[in-house]
């Protein structure tokens, strides 16, 4: 393991240590609840620094039970997605909208998927595609998080069935956390049940310095 798993976030350690007092018989001294409940919180003075990835991806997990490989189960390794440059405007007009509580791509929406497919193919290797799945606010939070992912995966499936390499298509869900329109009626909901396409630009060439 080249990276350490531990990230200490803040030093705002709050000790909930209650003073134990000598009490007369039949009287109870209040001990530390839960047998020692000191904890650190992110409210400390040090800024949060997550630094390098805590798990070694494409290798073994900390307990060595399972290899998380690229496409081990069909999805692409997205561990460096946060570090890639993205173009959100390239396919802004091609957002796919879904029916209420549905994750299937409607026929009239599939033309957008086809357009994106051709555009990504034309860009050639190095360019990847990120699909962001969203839901309206009428489902519960984790239900919608799963529904948003399912929508993104439904679009991904159309693309891969049409010949786009699975390794080039990433998905991420926002559930109902990022509505396109933040109001509470069907006009907003129909805009919020969606899959957005983001063009992921080629990885930057990194010039490494030989320090040896």
């Amino acid at each position, binding site marked *: 393991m080249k990276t350490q798993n531990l990230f200490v976030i803040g030093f705002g350690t709050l000790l909930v240590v209650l003073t134990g007092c000598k009490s007369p018989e039949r009287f109870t001294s209040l001990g530390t609840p839960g047998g020692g409940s000191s904890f650190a*919180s992110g409210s400390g003075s040090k800024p949060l620094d997550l630094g390098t990835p805590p798990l070694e991806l494409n290798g073994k997990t900390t307990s060595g039970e399972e290899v998380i490989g690229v496409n081990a189960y069909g999805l692409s390794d997205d561990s460096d997605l946060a570090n890639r440059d993205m173009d959100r405007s390239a396919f802004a007009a091609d957002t796919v909208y879904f029916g209420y509580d549905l994750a299937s791509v409607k026929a009239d929406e599939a033309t957008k998927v086809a357009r994106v497919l051709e555009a990504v193919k034309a860009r050639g290797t190095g360019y990847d595609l990120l699909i962001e799945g969203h839901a309206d606010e009428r489902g519960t939070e984790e239900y919608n998080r799963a529904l948003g*992912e399912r929508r993104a995966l439904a679009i991904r499936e159309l693309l891969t069935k049409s010949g786009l390499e699975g390794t080039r298509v990433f998905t991420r869900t926002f559930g109902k956390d990022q509505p396109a329109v933040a109001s509470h009626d069907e006009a907003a909901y129909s805009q919020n049940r969606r899959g957005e396409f983001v063009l992921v630009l080629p990885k930057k060439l990194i010039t490494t310095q030989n320090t040896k």
Partner: protein
Amino acid sequence: MIKGFCLLVVVSGILRAADPIDLGPITRSVDSLGFMKPIPVNVTGFSGEVDSVLRNDLAFMGFEFVSADKALFQIQKNSAAGVGASITQLQYNKAFTGGSTRQQTHALADDIAKTITLKPGIAQTRIAFKTRPRSYGAGEISISDYDGFNAMPVTRDGAICAAPAWGGNNTLFYMTHKLSGKPDILSHNLASGARKAIARHPGMNSSASVSPDGRRVAMILSKSGSPDLWVSDLDGGNLKQLTTTKEDESSPCWSPDSTKICFASRDSGRSRLYTVSASGGRMQPLSIAGVSNLSEPDWSPDGKFLIFTANMGGFRICVMPMEGPLRGTATTLVDGEDPVWAPNSRAVMFVKNVNNRHVLSLLDVPSKKTKDLGTIKGDASQPSWAR
């Protein structure tokens, strides 16, 4: 004497084993769902913070406040240092010192509740939840006392954080977009501040739920091509896929014996609840009459009830007995979502929508009485109760 206290349960022997105080026989009765009927008590002598904290605590641990002549137990302030009470009928006389007045009062409330109801106290427990300035966008994980006091942030990720779940040893599990811009699951030791990614697979990693025995984590991962139920060790190792549906699963919770997982799935079109063995096997639908579009189940720590959200033109909190003749019949309690049981299998924390702002609220399930946690600012949701 109190009408309706017909089901006689002699508990004095049990109490005597653990406590030198001789309680004498206590009579109890239960309601149609099997919950203990509220125990009528008269509380006197307290004032200010102690009085309000004590009453609030007892109200969510199975007590109701009545006049002295109607009370089964007379709880009166004693003259000891700290916060203390005597209960004439029980020869109970205790006081709690150390900590803050609020903590002393919580300790007294828990002790009284444990002595009389034989259920675990809830007044000294903590909750974790998601907080944010408004009802959408990035949020953080916070913790507080069960009544919303002493709230403090756990994360400062400046990203979408969600779905906190308590594990053992002062550890929280939750989802954050901080690492890779999409949902990954971390464990966070609140004592040391150490954070570890335990699920950082391609696609979605969310909805962690730690087994009551503290050994396994259930979660929803999409790396197999759709959001499925998986289970792993606490560090993310020993990962096993439990469902393989094309549609999405969500919101796993555990049976009290840690052998089964209950979750929501859209496998049959609309969202229903299912159970599956934590070691693998076929997922079994739960047949629940009268409600539809179900999600967010939580299994009571005593194993007797399932509480969940029904989405029927608005979110409703529903409860269903897991045993006896009423298994399969849901009772709708209040409007709200994301219910989670207290350690006493009677109180529940849930999320109420107040003018499109999410507010945490306490619910006494048998009486349907609620109390909003007014001390928490902003939008608060997704409670997890440390139990």
